């Protein structure tokens, strides 16, 4: 599949997955999965009301004594722009995120200071992690006319910083009396391709919603009181399958996970509709 199409679809699906993130879940199941690698609890939830648009679920791993979820480290950059006494700051621009800012400081050099935060290396790699920033800029005059445009790209190693400047000099094409640059407008994108910062030794709890041949997934890491992101699958009214499983791989460990599954059938407006109790179909192996 074309990568740009795929990313657009992913963005749209991510929006769908975010549906109902702030809405209460009316029903829940608490259970302990079996002590086996590959253990899977198989539920069916009947969203019987005709107005059902989607099923939303989220899970939390409540197994005592497990590692903390802070093992998943965030990556982001902080931006500081200055010229003369005018400054602008933007914090925590994560991979894939974009920010736009305008600095009204006339012609001359605008200084950019970018600090990259995140893990030094991915868990399975010796290679140092870097983040890539792309700045598309326009030097504009008071009337909003472009005096100069350009793009700058910078790679910054995590936990290091980088400086660069964008110069809005005099435009030779301007005639006498025409307006000079009054401001810099920048669209800055963190174009870093995210890599996992999850330690593979950490067992994660997963839940999938499946209906027909469509499915979505959400994951929770043990060690806090926070549920996973809510996942929603738009399948209309009917029976949804929900699986709860985990990434355990060591047969010598106790791989049973204590968990709570919350779920809610919702209409297109995000309101909860009739949500029948989940039926445990199977718990294997």
């Amino acid at each position, binding site marked *: 599949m074309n990568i740009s199409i795929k990313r657009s679809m992913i963005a749209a699906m991510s929006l769908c997955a975010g549906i109902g993130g702030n809405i209460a879940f009316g029903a829940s199941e608490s259970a302990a999965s079996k002590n086996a690698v590959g253990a899977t609890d198989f539920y069916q939830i009947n969203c019987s009301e005709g107005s059902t648009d989607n099923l939303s679920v989220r899970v939390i791993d409540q197994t005592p004594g497990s590692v903390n979820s802070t093992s998943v480290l965030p990556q982001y950059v902080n931006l500081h722009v200055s010229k003369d006494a005018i400054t602008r700051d933007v914090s925590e621009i994560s991979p894939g995120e974009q920010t736009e800012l305008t600095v009204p400081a006339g012609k001359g050099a605008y200084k950019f200071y970018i600090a990259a935060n995140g893990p030094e290396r991915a868990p*399975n790699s010796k290679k140092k992690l870097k983040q890539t920033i792309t700045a598309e800029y326009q030097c504009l005059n008071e009337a909003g006319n472009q005096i100069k445009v350009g793009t700058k790209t910078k790679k910054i190693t995590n936990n290091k910083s980088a400086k660069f400047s964008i110069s809005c000099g005099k435009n030779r094409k301007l005639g006498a009396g025409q307006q000079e640059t009054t401001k810099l407008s920048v669209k800055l994108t963190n174009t870093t391709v995210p890599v996992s910062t999850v330690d593979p030794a950490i067992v994660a709890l997963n839940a999938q919603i499946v209906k027909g*041949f469509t*499915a979505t997934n959400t994951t929770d890491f043990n060690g806090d009181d926070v549920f996973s992101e809510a996942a929603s699958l738009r399948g209309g009214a009917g029976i949804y399958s929900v699986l709860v499983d985990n*990434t355990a791989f060591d047969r010598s460990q106790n791989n049973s996970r204590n968990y709570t599954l919350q779920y809610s059938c919702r209409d297109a407006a995000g309101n909860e509709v009739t949500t029948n109790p989940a039926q445990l179909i199977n718990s294997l192996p």
Partner: protein
Amino acid sequence: MKNIKIKLLTVIGLLSMTYPFMSSAHDQSQSLGVAASATDVYEVDCASAPKLFFEIKSILSSSSPVSAQVINDTVALSTTDSRGGDTESSPALEVVKPGNSAIYTVVVNKTAAGAANYAIEFHCENSDGSHASITEIALKQDQ
């Protein structure tokens, strides 16, 4: 002769367009997009064979653990390759169908944001563990 050859190629082309995802191969490589919730779904048809052998391998050392779930009727099992980029695959699954449905749903996902490449190996099996002659797979959801 040239006209017959062109017509034959056209027919083959049309047939391949009609069944774009059908395959009898036992290996398939695919990628998951960067969203943490990215999920691929396959339909595997085992015709009259009673069980499906399945394992998955995560290709990139930088990706989070890659998991797969195999569902048939009332049976669901999961397997995970927790460490990408090495030579090891996930633990193998042998999923025995509980009823008469020949169709298995295979769901592939990961635990965090970031791209992942993976390869799945699968085949339908007879009761004695020998490979069944027909295994068909169709990619139904590609995220």
